[in-house]
């Protein structure tokens, strides 16, 4: 009896903690990253659009990830770092040291995907393929979407766009 009660309590605590972690934007979320970067802060709090940093989206195939020279355009105004996060960014900008970002989305070598074609010309929102980054810090926290060919096919057939193999595999 005692054992069962213990397991039940443990389960309830576990569920509560899990629920809390899923819905929170605590600073710990980004601890595994080379830089404690939060998409949530940039997009929701400071209202920066995706294309402002991922500048390749409108002009080329790869969206691109900005590095310290681009970050420093905004962060160079940070003069007196107070929190731990601010200090890390301050030091990075000061040293002008490139950040080794983790790349979560890899397009396989045999597929040629163009962001420009989909976002600029096709006028698709980023959230059609990616997670809504205005609500979380890192793409892998929850709902990391793996993009497979049926997804491409469904959308192309719905919108009456060519499904010629050669357009993506060449």
């Amino acid at each position: 009896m005692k054992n069962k009660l213990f397991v039940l309590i443990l389960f309830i605590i576990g569920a509560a903690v899990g629920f809390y972690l899923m819905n929170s934007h605590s600073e710990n979320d980004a601890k595994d990253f080379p830089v404690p970067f939060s998409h949530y802060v940039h997009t929701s709090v400071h209202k920066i659009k995706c294309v402002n940093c991922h500048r390749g989206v409108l002009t080329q195939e790869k969206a691109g990830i900005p590095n310290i020279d681009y970050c420093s355009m905004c962060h160079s105004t940070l003069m007196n770092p107070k929190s731990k996060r601010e200090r890390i960014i301050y030091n990075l900008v000061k040293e002008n040291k490139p950040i080794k970002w983790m790349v979560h989305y890899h397009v396989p070598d045999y597929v040629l995907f163009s962001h420009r074609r989909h976002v600029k010309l096709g006028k698709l929102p980023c959230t059609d393929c990616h997670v809504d980054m205005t609500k979380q810090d890192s793409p892998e926290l929850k709902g990391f979407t793996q993009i497979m060919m049926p997804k491409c096919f469904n959308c192309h057939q719905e919108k009456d766009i060519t499904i010629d193999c050669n357009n993506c595999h060449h």
Partner: protein
Amino acid sequence: MPRYGMVIDLNKCNNCEACVTACKLENNVQIVSKENAEMGRAMFWIKMLIKNYSGNYPDIRSESLPVSCMQCDEPSCIKVCPVRATYKRDDGIVAQIYPQCIGCRYCMANCPYTAKVFNWFKDEQPVENEKTYNPDVSVRPKGVVEKCTFCIHRLQKAKEQAKAEHRKIREEDYQPACAEVCPSHAIYFGDLDDPSSKVSKVMRDYRKFTLQEELGTKPKVYYLSAMTE
């Protein structure tokens, strides 16, 4: 729908092989070692067949024939492919889908122009060469057949650009690497069905011929024979 084709003026071709080099670099065609090349495993999407040199130095005249995939209207390669890895697009370009290819090489055996090449080895280039890869073209894995695609990635880019600028695709927007690089402008490329395009004007020349016409493959790469004295 356009029908893309090529005309090579053999009168102008001076056997410099710039097209061969440009093609290799543009399409990430594997560079095989010397030993393997001697075994007949060298890879070219466009190759220069040298027939003969005539004259005395410095007045040498070469007779050569650049041969790429003929992009036939009646391709013999697509009829034998068991997995439909090779097929003819609406614009006449014969496409090869590498992830679908099983490497049976039936198409290679059936091609009368020997235009297709097989990846016998994994593409292992020196690390320094990695940055020279063209990101618009995939690096083919070992065990698939590949061939000239009329630089199809350039067509896509040109289409993309034309759409962004709200205009139709122009002739000069889309030129394959070989036509672009040719120093003597011997290679003409464009829409064969458009009577105002340069390529269709050149094609009306009486010197026009195609390779192995009697087979009925209807190649879209035309040659203008070299004039002899």
